[in-house]
């Protein structure tokens, strides 16, 4: 029953691995970008270390891990093959395939994310582990935390994919892909802690965001990795990830079924 999904995964995975030059150029960008973030935080740290919600090493670890996993979690990587299918009207072909459309698209999104991350993560680790002291990526996890971290990464990917599915489903209705995607990407990039980590948010906003699906994306595994989330807070964060993954998948499936019932195929 899962065979078609594995086949699809393999196709998308090898397809994404083709773009090695783009990955290399992207890698350089991410590295410079991460370094600028760290330098800015270093300046704020010198200003007043006491106002930091986490240690400087933890902040550095958060930023490097974020760059390493960028293509896995960031919501501004949209799959052109899906938005193209919706906007060109080829969605009609998708509907006659004997495969569940939700599962098919979700597999497509997840596979290209994983492929791109495989190419980009290792080189970032290779450099970040060997930088001079304050800028070095450090690991403070024990084996048990590492296992929870791995689980949380998988859940995070699931929530990110389920969330982007909601955006694609919206596009089926509005046919205004670019605008909706831009707004969704920008708002979620901020709320998931893509620009500054969620612990740096003001208290009130932080409490709200921590319960939202946005905190269930990159935020949770990154904060597990750097040792910020422990014990009860950790259990709660992972629990919320499971909850949001289930909720977003159910909402996505219902919305998709409804919108496919009265779909208008564009183009000819």
């Amino acid at each position, binding site marked *: 029953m899962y065979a078609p999904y594995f086949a699809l995964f393999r196709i998308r995975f090898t397809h994404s691995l083709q773009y090695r030059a783009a990955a290399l150029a992207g890698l350089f960008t991410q590295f410079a970008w991460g370094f600028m973030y760290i330098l800015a935080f270093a300046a*704020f740290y010198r*200003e007043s270390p006491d106002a930091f919600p986490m240690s400087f090493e933890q902040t550095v670890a958060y930023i490097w891990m974020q760059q390493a996993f960028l293509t896995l979690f960031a919501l501004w990587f949209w799959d052109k093959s899906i938005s193209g299918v919706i906007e060109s009207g080829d969605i009609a072909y998708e509907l006659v395939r004997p495969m569940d459309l939700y599962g098919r698209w979700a597999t497509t999104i997840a596979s290209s994310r994983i492929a791109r991350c495989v190419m980009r993560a290792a080189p970032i680790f290779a450099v970040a582990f060997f930088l001079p002291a304050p800028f070095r990526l450090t690991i403070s996890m024990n084996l048990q935390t590492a296992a929870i971290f791995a689980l949380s990464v998988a859940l995070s990917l699931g929530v990110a994919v389920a969330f982007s599915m909601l955006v694609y489903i919206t596009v089926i209705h509005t046919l205004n892909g670019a605008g909706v995607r831009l707004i969704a990407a*920008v708002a979620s990039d901020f709320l998931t802690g893509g620009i500054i980590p969620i612990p740096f948010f003001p208290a009130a906003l932080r409490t709200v965001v921590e319960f939202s699906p946005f905190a269930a994306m990159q935020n949770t595994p990154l904060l597990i990795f750097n040792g910020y989330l422990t014990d009860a807070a950790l259990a709660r964060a992972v629990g919320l990830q499971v909850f949001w993954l289930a909720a977003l998948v159910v909402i996505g499936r219902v919305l998709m079924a409804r919108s496919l019932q009265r779909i208008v195929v564009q183009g000819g």
Partner: protein
Amino acid sequence: MKLYAKYFSMHLKSQMQYKVSFFFTTFGQFLMAFSTLLSITFLLDRFGGVGGFSREEIMLSFAIILLAYSVGEIFGRGFDRFPILIGNGGFDRILVRPRSVIFQVLASQINFSRVGVAVQAVLIFAYVIPGIDLTPTNIFVIVLMVTCGSLLFFSFFVLYAAVTFFTLEGLEFMHLLTSGAREHGRLPYSVYGEGVLKFLTFVVPLALVQYYPLLYLTGREENFFFAITPVFSLLFLIPCHAFFRFGQKRYKSTGS
């Protein structure tokens, strides 16, 4: 100039045909700049200031970079979309027309949705302006920073297009110069340390339109030389233009 005005109104009319789409994209652009503004506000609420600069001074340097970036992108869009022009053979058509190549690429696209970013920059200006001593000299310095900054951002897009002659597709790391400069320009560039500041002074002269004139504006430097540093950043246009011309000479059509 008259021809450009004609292109300008043509692009404006065509983008206004899709009002909803235009509104969404413009709003998205506004949000993008707004999320950077929020991040800096949150950090300043927590830390007060950074690198010896106060909240208002930091906001001012962000507003200048933001406005310069948006103006540069509104007009530099044709160069930003250059990989498409090369890819679909559109550039071949440009070459056979009896007008300057640079002019035609410039006029091929105008991106009005970046007005969303410009509006935000103006709003931040409105917030910080009351704190600035608005002497004629200071107004002149601010205008100079924004004008030269816009030209500098514009030259980044020309450079990006010039690289496309050789790579045929856009290179992601060129975005470091454009989006990167906007995102990290939320703080005075000196905050990033000596090395970065030197790089942004002598290699990619972004600090010349932001950090040095800011020192003059805030009374940290009396020397008027600091006020006119943006003019020197324009030297960056020369190699960008030369590189574009060089690429154009080496251009081989991709066919269409």
